[in-house]
């Protein structure tokens, strides 16, 4: 065990730190749940790509740096520390990108990865359906192969598709074998959002903005080379993507460490009133410790993966831990803010509320998206602990 950074890692940290200092916009971008904000974030991705900072773990040939997972964690630490913009294309670069590298053909990698990396193609997910939420194997949307074998015809409805309103491409699972049941007979398909027959209906989220949407597919023709993995192998491919989502890539510890740091600051600024409820101090300390624990465990997982280990059911332990930590931290901040906690920052007397309300609202979604925490608990009980399914 050696818990010190190498000289190479330290130099890497300095390099990204100085690039961020020179390039992070001084004014925060508008939220990417607005059209203007979405475009601003797309431009930011292009700038990141120019600096070869877009997706550092990708190979150099694809615009990345071939960085190891420790460098990735360092990058994220500096990124959140610099309060750089959120990643509008996280579905692409963090989830689909690694899946493409594992299951895509050489031609597909060439075709999709660069556009993804530059922000030209922003991706959204098309997984959940009105009757297939936690029960993803209940998917009914269909993909039928045309008689000439050149296209799939997509029909059905997808929902809760984050950033689908302005996204350029979607990836999702469709049933190619109409006789199949559950997780058999599903196929992973990539589709441009501007195809004829696709209708997007925005769904306003708790903040009133169209952060997600429904996608209707009505006889949408997609070339067969937009299939990722083999026909009927969709579940296997999707599980890899879900692993990336719940595991290392999506929610790096730095995000929560920065929230914990800001929570400590908020507590210290308001200590006198906050201490009227002694449980607040306890919750603040716990936030710090849990964010540290999440960091330590993620570093350990990264070290294991570097040594050739595989990510398993611990992806589920991660997902529960960070989502409940995020909820708890924001709830604590609301307690500290007291009567002003419910105010939006633009309210005339909202001084000092910062962005906590936004974060509080968003934190409510954490235990739900990427597989509800109930599903994660089932996975832990059945696959980690070996408890009986039936």
């Amino acid at each position: 065990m050696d818990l010190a950074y190498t000289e190479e890692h330290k130099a890497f940290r300095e390099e990204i730190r100085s690039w961020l200092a020179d390039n992070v916009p001084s004014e925060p971008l508008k939220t990417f749940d607005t059209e203007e904000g979405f475009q601003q974030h797309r431009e930011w991705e292009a700038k990141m790509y120019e600096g070869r900072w877009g997706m550092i773990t990708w190979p150099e040939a694809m615009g990345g740096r071939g960085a190891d997972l420790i460098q990735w964690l360092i990058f994220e630490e500096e990124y959140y520390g610099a309060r750089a913009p959120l990643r509008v294309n996280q579905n692409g670069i963090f989830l689909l990108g690694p899946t493409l590298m594992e299951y895509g053909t050489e031609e597909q990698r060439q075709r999709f990865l660069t556009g993804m990396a530059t922000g030209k193609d922003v991706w959204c997910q098309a997984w959940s359906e009105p009757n297939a939420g936690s029960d993803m194997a209940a998917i009914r949307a269909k993909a039928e192969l045309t008689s000439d074998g050149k296209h799939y015809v997509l029909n059905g409805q997808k929902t809760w598709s984050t950033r689908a309103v302005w996204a350029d491409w979607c990836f999702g699972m469709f049933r190619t074998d109409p006789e199949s049941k559950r997780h058999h007979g599903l196929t992973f398909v990539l589709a441009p959002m501007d195809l004829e027959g696709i209708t997007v209906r925005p769904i306003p989220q708790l903040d009133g903005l169209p952060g997600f949407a429904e996608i209707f597919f009505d006889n949408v023709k997609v070339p067969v080379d937009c299939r990722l993995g083999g026909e009927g192998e969709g579940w296997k491919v999707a599980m890899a993507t879900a692993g990336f989502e719940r595991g290392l890539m999506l929610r790096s510890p730095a995000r929560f460490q920065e929230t914990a740091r800001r929570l400590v600051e908020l507590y210290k600024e308001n200590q006198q009133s906050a201490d009227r409820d002694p449980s607040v101090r306890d919750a603040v300390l716990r936030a710090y410790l849990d964010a540290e624990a999440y960091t330590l465990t993620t570093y350990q997982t990264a070290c294991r993966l570097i040594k050739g280990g595989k990510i398993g059911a611990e992806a589920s332990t991660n997902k529960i831990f960070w989502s409940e930590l995020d909820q708890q931290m924001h709830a604590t901040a609301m307690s500290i803010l007291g009567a002003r906690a419910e105010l939006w920052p633009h309210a005339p007397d909202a001084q000092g509320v910062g962005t906590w309300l936004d974060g509080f609202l968003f934190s409510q979604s954490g235990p739900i998206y990427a597989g509800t925490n109930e599903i994660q608990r089932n996975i832990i009980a059945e696959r980690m602990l070996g408890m009986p399914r039936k």
Partner: protein
Amino acid sequence: MDFTFTEDQLLFQESVSDFLKNEVTPEKIRELWETDTGRSDELWAQLVELGLAGMTVPEEFGGLGMNELDFVLLAQEAGHAALPEPLVHIALVAVPTLTALNNEALSNEWLPKIAEGSAKVVVGLEQNVFVEDAHIADLLLLQNGDEIHALGKDQVELIYNESVDPSRKLYKVNWTPSADTCVASGAEGKAIIDAALNRGALAVAAQALGLAQRMIEISVQYTSERQQFGVAIGTFQAVKHHMANIAYKLEYAKTPVARAAYALVNNLSTVDLNVSHAKFAACEVSDLAAKNCVQVHGAMGYTWEVDLQIFMKKAWAFNNTWGDAAFHKNRVADFVLADNALLGAGNTFLS
């Protein structure tokens, strides 16, 4: 950056785990409850044979010269077995404290005997009120303010205090400090006492991880067999989630414990913070394990007969020893709430 244990450390853990599974069964533990001392010379001899008693004794005194990181996984296994012998205390607390005294006469007299298994040494700190296993100790290192005193077993009076855990043997020790018995004082004494407290907290934290793991195993087995409504109760989501809640939290207590051991070995400036994090997180998860596991056992969990009690009671005892939650949280607060505290992303691995 390498946050993994070495192959050797993992192999050693496996072999100790195998040994304890075979030799320290719940039946064996219950047998020892019925004996006068609650301890077994035979079992101790086996532990000595494996090199465990002298593992942290420096090589020049006949030990293996290993450190806290080498031992921390073994402490976890000792917790998993609810090992009654004071192995973890001796290897992680008493031997390093004795060594840190750097007292030639004491080292020469006691360290070789500890390594060969013919003597036991224990540490008693004021924080704990009681001294564990004082009844089988040949040498006691006792705190008096900033001083440490070394006393032979004939120089102390022991008053037994019964713990909820029949395996724990706690003694109030009556003794008189004197210039003859004082072996460290002032800043040096305080530093050694502080380190001993950190080592004791780490020792308990590592064992608590093993206790939580064992309680999960016992309860998974029980709920997979016990049937109600025509099915194993382990198929019910409410029962599964009780278990999953322990299991996921355990993953986030293991790494703080490993980091605390690393901090002790490497004398990191954050050692107090790191140890308190480990103790707090590990005891919290073993406490949760006790609560959820007794629940899924139903009335059986409340009986003397079911082995869960062996592990559950130790977890309850561990909560408030070697620093209770208040003590450790306050040490975390000392760091987190200080002016200019290095918090936030990028500050986890301070040297």
